[in-house]
């Protein structure tokens, strides 16, 4: 066999094997089972012994590896749904977005958008009794998981050092956010739930939390232990939102106008403390001229 013929033979074999691997597991029985009857006959005929059962080992390994990395990357989302229902959504997502990159984590990116796009016309069920879960909670959970993952996987960046800039520059420029810093808004207490679930290896759906009396914002950022989370004061969250859009001077002016009268007296001192905390925790990497 010459090289071209070898390449064609290899391509054909690998295409057939890949199809076996991606054959979805069947959930009808309540557990995920390989559907060996769906494997292509030519490949099964090429394999010795009990071919379909042996190929099923690879088929199951493919799915369990991918579902495990999905569960690890979307832990809050998974526990709100319970693993069985989460796996059904994850399997459908992976059928439509199979892995292409050598970095296994890459396959998990985009599951939040997939759920947002696909849950609109679907009921979302969870737990052993197929109890519906409000889509809004689920999408908020994906936002929390996504923010955590973004911060964890961000590259190393230089820290912003205000001492390197003149006061004029500081006021007239926008702060550039670090990739290792993210904010999430929540209407249900999901951020703390995510962190309490960190050491919980159960697969069952967690109890749905009651909604908060008022929405709140969290900052995620990196520290020596990993990813830290900090609940922001409402005005602190507003300041950081304004800093995303405006130069520092303008952001401070907007905040002063928006702050309730009773907060204005202490606002300058608080603002300095919030910005100093952000600098100390590397929320920003530098300045951008506007």
């Amino acid at each position: 066999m010459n090289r071209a013929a070898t390449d064609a033979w290899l391509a054909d074999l690998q295409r057939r094997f890949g199809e076996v691997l991606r054959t979805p597991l069947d959930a009808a029985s309540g557990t995920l089972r390989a559907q060996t009857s769906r494997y292509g006959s030519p490949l099964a005929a090429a394999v010795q012994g009990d071919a379909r059962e042996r190929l099923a080992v690879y088929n199951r390994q493919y799915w369990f590896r991918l579902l495990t990395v999905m569960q690890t990357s979307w832990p809050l989302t998974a526990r709100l749904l319970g693993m069985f229902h989460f796996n059904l959504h994850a399997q459908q997502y992976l059928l439509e977005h199979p892995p292409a990159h050598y970095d296994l984590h890459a396959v998990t990116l985009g599951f939040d958008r997939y759920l947002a796009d696909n849950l609109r016309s679907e009921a979302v069920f969870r737990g052993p009794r197929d109890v519906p879960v409000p889509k809004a909670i689920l999408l908020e959970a994906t936002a929390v998981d996504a923010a955590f993952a973004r911060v964890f996987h961000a590259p190393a960046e230089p820290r912003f050092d205000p001492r390197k800039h003149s006061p004029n520059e500081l006021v007239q420029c926008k702060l550039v956010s670090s990739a290792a810093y993210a904010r999430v808004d929540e209407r249900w207490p999901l951020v703390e739930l995510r962190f309490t679930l960190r050491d919980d290896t159960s697969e069952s759906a967690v109890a749905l939390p009651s909604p908060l009396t008022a929405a709140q914002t969290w900052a995620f950022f990196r520290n020596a232990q990993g990813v830290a989370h900090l609940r922001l004061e409402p005005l602190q969250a507003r300041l950081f939102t304004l800093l995303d859009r405006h130069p520092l001077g303008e952001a401070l002016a907007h905040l002063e106008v928006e702050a309730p009268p009773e907060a204005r007296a202490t606002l300058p001192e608080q603002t300095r403390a919030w910005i100093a905390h952000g600098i100390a925790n590397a929320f920003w990497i530098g300045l951008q001229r506007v």
Partner: protein
Amino acid sequence: MSASESEAVSTPKYTALSRGLPANALGLGLRLPHYPYLFEHWPELGYLEVISENFMGDAEPPARHLARIRERYSVVMHGVGLNLLSHEPLSETYLDGLCRLADKLDAPFVTDHLCWTGSHGYNHHDLLPLPYVPQLIELAAERAHYVQKRLDRPFGLENLSSYVSFNESSMSEHEFYTRVVHEAGCHYMLDINNIYVSSQNHGFDPHTYLRAIDYARVLQVHLAGHSREPDGTIVDTHDRPVCDEVWQLYAAAWQLGGPFPTLLEWDASIPPMPVALAELARATTVRTERTVRG
């Protein structure tokens, strides 16, 4: 003084192949749950092995942790994504990242598997088998030779654990493996557990396999645990201690071609690090007993 007793007290031999690793070094596959114990106790250990792909990305925390670890230990690299036997060409982007990491770590050697992991644009994230046929020897050897040259350091190929064998195979696994390594001018990353798993799944003699290996070209040996499916198929799960049969094969390999660096992999149901270290330490006992008996 027996060979085993002298091993314990004399200065370890360093092989040219392993570039500074003691020839009888014991190493552990580095996994995330090990970090807290490692950073607190810095246990005595010959070397650590990382999964290359876990450290080839831009994420800062893994890079920071690895830099700390590298200050104390030699680190070798073991890949799962080279895709040596795909019908598609090797990824130069992947190789760029691999070379960068190897340079950064000054890795004594780099290893990956004699298998394919993806095709037609898909990455299956599994180590997949092929028929053992002569026409694949040339392809695998050419590519392995190229990878070793690109890395500019010893490159080793690991034998696969597999669950299927193909009607088209016209030679044994060990014949295919040894010919690829020989023609590529690369090295063996000999996984003893994989030999056992495949020998049970496909019915060949693991000792014949071990006798076919040129131990002068062995970079290191892997040990691991495995599990058995209800139908009897053995799956390479790396989720438990090494079984007695694999220890016996290890002792046989040591007698045939030791010393060589030996590494324990434990990837699922990972125990506290002292448990893994105690399991690894059994390697010294097993080969000592065998040498004394032998």
